[in-house]
């Protein structure tokens, strides 16, 4: 009898615990020892502990007692995904032959500024542009950006010290479906307030094929600047983020004229009406339910689309029409860098016309 009671006593909380474990979304937080990422004194047995470095980065102490910088962990230069002390770590820069992650590979900017976002942490500055294309002036952004912080993309995008805007994000990181997106840690790829579904399957962080890819969030009409970039639109006191919470809206916080349906100083942006005829290629507009667009039915990682609702799972289908899928900046461009001019997903400058049009033809199926 006592034994039965003991079993009941133990099993009940165990069951409750198991139910809790399997019913609550588990944050994909960094696990392991604190010392895997932090160091108290940057010294252990006489050796420096800041040993996650990229290129010529110093091994001196870092903010938040970190053992390395962003690139120190995410640009180690070998594989596309590496194992660091038991954690899989995506590599935004790698030089081996493994396939690039969904955002691309920053190695390309080291040979051509035109191929990616010029993140100064890599030590190679922009030589051609004077401001982000499509940005209003005076911008204060410059063309040499950082991973995070005031002139970066990840985190709150507010502080000069870029690491401050990422503080704690890895500790609270949530993977998979991210449709709350009110904090950095529960936003898509730490892009504050951007929604999406991170590919968390066999090909995590990758856009491999129609069955293995991220799902991006989009809207049916671009944002409009109207009177200016107010706190609702982009310039939140907490940092910079898009009101629409879409991936294209996020890009527009720096490249506004390329997304907004009504930009500043009389510039129409992509077109004041938000409908055809557009004056720039639109984003956050549906694939029309007509003509050639109906030919895009199977998801293509060459020209991916966004969804009007963040899905629960990855879908290999593309749907046109009012409730269908959405064109986005990432339909054509890689977020970090690609091996092609203008960060495009395909070689628009190919000497073979059909190749140069290959990405266009994913949506514009009759222009082949």
């Amino acid at each position: 009898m006592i034994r039965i009671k003991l079993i009941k006593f133990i099993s009940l909380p165990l069951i409750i615990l198991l139910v809790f474990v399997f019913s609550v979304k588990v944050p994909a937080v960094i696990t392991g020892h604190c010392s895997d990422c932090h160091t108290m004194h940057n010294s252990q047995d006489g050796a420096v502990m800041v040993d996650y470095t990229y290129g010529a980065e110093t091994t001196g102490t870092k903010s938040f007692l970190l053992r390395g910088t962003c690139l120190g962990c995410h640009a180690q230069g070998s594989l596309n995904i590496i194992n660091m002390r038991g954690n899989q770590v995506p590599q935004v820069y790698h030089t081996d032959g493994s396939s690039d992650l969904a955002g691309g590979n920053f190695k390309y900017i080291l040979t051509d500024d035109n191929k990616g976002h010029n993140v100064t942490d890599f030590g190679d500055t922009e030589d051609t542009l004077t401001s982000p294309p499509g940005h209003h002036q005076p911008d204060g952004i410059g063309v040499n950006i950082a991973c995070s912080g005031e002139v970066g993309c990840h985190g709150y995008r507010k502080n000069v010290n870029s690491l401050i805007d990422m503080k704690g994000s890895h500790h609270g990181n949530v993977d998979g479906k991210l449709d709350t997106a009110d904090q950095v840690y529960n936003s898509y790829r730490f892009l504050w307030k951007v929604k999406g579904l991170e590919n968390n399957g066999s090909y995590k962080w990758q856009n491999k094929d129609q069955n293995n890819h991220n799902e991006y969030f989009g809207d049916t009409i671009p944002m409009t600047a109207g009177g200016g970039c107010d706190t609702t639109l982009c310039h939140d006191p907490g940092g910079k983020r898009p009101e629409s919470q879409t991936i294209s809206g996020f890009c527009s916080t720096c490249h506004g004229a390329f997304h907004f349906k009504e930009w500043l100083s009389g510039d129409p942006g992509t077109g004041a009406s938000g409908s055809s005829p557009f004056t720039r290629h639109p984003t956050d507009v549906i694939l029309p339910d007509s003509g050639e667009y109906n030919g895009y039915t199977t998801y293509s990682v060459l020209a991916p689309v966004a969804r009007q609702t963040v899905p629960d799972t990855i879908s290999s289908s593309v749907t046109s029409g009012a409730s269908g899928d959405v064109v986005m900046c990432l339909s054509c461009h890689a977020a970090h860098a690609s091996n092609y001019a203008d960060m495009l997903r395909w070689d628009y400058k190919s000497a073979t016309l059909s190749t140069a049009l290959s990405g266009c033809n994913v949506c514009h199926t009759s222009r082949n």
Partner: protein
Amino acid sequence: MKTRRLNNVVNLIKTVNLKASDNLKIISSVLVCLVLFAVFYVKSVSAGPYLNSAHGSSSYGVKRSAADYESPAIDPNYIKGLCAHCHEQHASIDGFEPYPVPGPDNYTLFYSNYVNQTDGFCFQCHTSSSSHQATAFNNYNYSYRAGGDTSLTCPNNILSAFSFINESGAPVSNCSSSTGSSHKLTDIQTFITAAAQSSWGFTANSNPCSACHNPHSAQRDPHTSGSRGYPVSRPSLHNSKDNNSWGLWGDSAAELMNNYTASYQAPYRSGSTTLYEPDGSTTTNGSNLTDYVTFCTDCHNSTNTIYSTTLGRNLYQFNWSAEKHGGGAATNDASVTDIIAPYQEAQLGNYVLACTDCHEPHGSPNRYLIRKMVNGGATTVTVITTPDNTRDWNSLCTKCHNDSTSISNSHHILGMGCTTCHTPDPADFPNCLDCHYHGSTAIYGSPYNGGEHLF
């Protein structure tokens, strides 16, 4: 390529040492063959409508001049035929907007889609001077291209062809003519976007050139036998929101002039009595000519009301299927030789003409878009009033109708009295247009023969 791969598979089968009793070997060999076939079989790739179009050709397609980009240093050197030569996706390349003009335009074009009769996006390249196309090119009139009269080198571009009138419809001196004519583009735009044509799917933003041409499909037509292209699309079939599923007209057997019950007879090509329009071949039955009757009568028919700024009135409505030059019946006067070769007396009354046999599609130094060369002969049509003592219109009509027998006899046997036509002076000649125009069934206000068509 596929045949070669199949042969390889067959050869492979032959080289496999098969024994009839060895089923395993047979099966495995077949499997090997199937696997190899599956691996090496590649569906043949064919170009789509854009790559086959004039603009999308990798040989002669669109190619904006390098000088039009902000500077040679950022010349993107896009391949010929690429979208970017017409469409600026962001109105920005490497942080600058390419020439010719700043600011984004509708449809992401590098220039305003349509402004007026002589200003618009198409004319940025289809012009003789300052063309933004990197390599100079000519677009001659139909009389040159299909008619084969290579002396007619003016107009030599589309802008020039539309420049015989201005936006007000008034004539403009062009190609040594001050009495030329052009399709009035703004009138076209007004018509195709009118409520009555709403099912056609054009909008207020539509370029009037796109009433007849799909810029992503329209093909170059060399007018050479064995090498043809199809430049037009029927406006009434445009009915597609995104303008993409709008196919070409004339590129299938059902869309050619030889489909009419009445016979089509191709006119002579310039300088020849053995070769014919539109491609200089010996084909005469219209099997090599787009059915321009169906194409043109989408607009020019018995029901549509089309206002002409040039004429200051609505165009005449007419039913081509009932008119003599069209599908309607005509009477052969067996007592005279009415007609000129290649048209045959025996077939008279059973012909149907194509609009392009007499008219230029864009513009002409002649009135009413009349071609400068018809059935192998030159025309000069400048007079639209009566009397026409220079007998301008005869220069057109006599390309097919016998002047001394058919034209004179046919009129004099009507018995209407000399001064009915020869007026105000008995020596005056009436203008053919007095009675013979599209839709006419009356002579000076009096119905002819119970309403018989006079054209």
